[in-house]
């Protein structure tokens, strides 16, 4: 399975924050390759640089140095506008706190990334419904986030990430705000998506969840290392 084309290829990525004159090396020469169809979990203690790594993978942020190739494109000299387009087309984000727009229905939330693709109404609705269907929430499409349980909200967020058919799904502690039972359901959903062919990067504190992934990566003080290959 791990023989697909590389979707993510990072070499010597460094990200340094300067706070009050002091340097924090959030990422310190990180190397990482993720191939198509992989299910990778990233674990590491708090403050080790997991979210920083994910933000760079997801083009929400850019590295200070190093090379990053996403789906064959080198992400270096891109403008903000181009990065936005890449996020829109290639990345599906799933956050710990769901990050849904509270004023909109579940369906409208899922449609949002498609709107930014300028997709036409009918096709957009169709795709959004399909995505909601994949996470098993067809019957909740008109509910607002506040009318959904945490697990359901996270499913909507996953549907939103899936809707554009991205090259990779990035989930930053997606079960962090859920009780363990609901969390397990969400993880099961990720495994299901993985079996269907999606590429997934999952950040977690939970060793047990991490251990079920096909491949495990550990971060410590901004340095990336493979676990038990």
């Amino acid at each position, binding site marked *: 399975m791990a023989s697909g084309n590389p979707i993510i290829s990072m070499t010597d990525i460094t990200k340094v924050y300067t706070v009050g004159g002091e340097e924090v090396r959030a990422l310190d020469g990180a190397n990482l390759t993720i191939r198509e169809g992989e299910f990778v979990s990233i674990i590491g203690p708090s403050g080790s640089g997991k979210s920083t790594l994910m933000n760079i993978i997801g083009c929400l942020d850019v590295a200070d140095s190093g090379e990053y190739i996403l789906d064959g494109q080198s992400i270096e000299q891109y403008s903000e*506008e181009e990065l*936005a387009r890449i996020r829109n087309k290639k990345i599906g984000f799933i956050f710990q706190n769901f990050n849904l727009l509270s004023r909109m229905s579940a369906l409208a939330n899922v449609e949002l990334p498609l709107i930014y693709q300028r997709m036409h109404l009918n096709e957009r609705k169709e795709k959004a419904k399909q995505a909601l269907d994949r996470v098993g929430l067809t019957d909740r499409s008109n509910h607002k986030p506040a009318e959904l349980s945490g697990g359901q909200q996270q499913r909507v967020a996953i549907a939103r990430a899936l809707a554009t058919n991205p090259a990779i799904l990035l989930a930053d502690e997606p079960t962090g705000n859920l009780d363990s039972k609901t969390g397990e359901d969400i993880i099961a959903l990720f495994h299901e998506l993985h079996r269907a062919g999606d590429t997934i990067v999952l950040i977690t504190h939970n060793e047990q969840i991490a251990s079920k992934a096909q491949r495990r990566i550990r971060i410590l003080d901004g340095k990336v290392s493979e676990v038990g290959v």
Partner: protein
Amino acid sequence: MILQSVKMAWEAITSNKMRSFLTMLGIIIGVVALVVLVSLVNGATGAVTSEITALGNDMVTVNVRDDKGSPIRLEDMDEIASLEAVGEAAPSGSLNATAKFGYSDVAVSLYGTTPAYYNIQGLNLKYGRFLKTADIENASYVAVLAYNTAEELFGKADVVGEQLTIAGRSFLVVGVLEEDTSLFASMIGGYSAYAPFTVESRMADEPYVTTLSVSPNGNTDETENQVESYMLTRFHQDEDAFRLMNMSSISDAMSTVTGTLSLLLGGIAAISLLVGGIGIMNIMLVSVTERTKEIGIRKAIGAGKKSIMMQFLIEALMVSLMGCLLGLALSWLILEIVTVIAKTIAFSMSIGVVLLAVGFASAIGLIFGLYPANKAANKHPIEALRYEG
């Protein structure tokens, strides 16, 4: 994309109706001020100008202040009338007196003139006839009454053949003019009567012509020039010996005044629109901060700077345009009410002022929306996502 932005803006506006309305209020008030003030001035000007044109058509009036020893006599009227650019010429002496009939009396302005006056002034007869040349020559005690004068004195209009006294002298009524329903007449008010110049001048003890009016033969400007040079020759080139007036100079002066007035009022209204615009900017800035998280989410799922910019700009534009529409509706209502109250003048919004209001409101929405929209568009996605409001 624009359609989507409009939809998003609409959702944002309707999700906080009270605040949106209060934001619009500045624009509403500004637009109402602009439209109502300008329309009122325009309506009044239009009414008055059309009255002036209808009333005085294009006659030229001369007022003699100092006759320099060569006063104008009645006989000279023919000479003036024979000027190439002059159609007809008539003297119009006047005196104020009391007219009496039976037990009723009324203060009238008695004008002493000649038959030519009828055409020059553009009068219209209802009953009887106007003054005749024979009346002037014989100095007959005959009078033509204005409609309201007849009604006031006799309680009816058809009074040809009746006798009345003016300043103690007995006059035979030979004609009654049509009712003057114009705004001008109702503004000036008063009662008038017309008698032969020869009679009136004797009563007023003023044998010479001190006021006369002429109708143009062709171009009014040419008429004015010729009459002026005639008078200058007569009064030893003294420009201050007489005064020349025509209706177009009056309406010119008037339109200068009203033009300045509407500019001034429009300017004040524009300032209140500007204040409304600052209100929009203020609320938009608050809204951008409040919605930092939303901006972060939108950016994370692929909204570019331009889309975010567009969303907030359109929101500002919509608030301002909706305010403008409400303001226009309110202005329309106010003008309708004023029209009902004013009775004689119909006030309405001109397309010009509506376009001006819409143009101004959109410009203000765009200009004052630009800064907040730019602020929203430039938020860093990660920091925006972290924001907890």
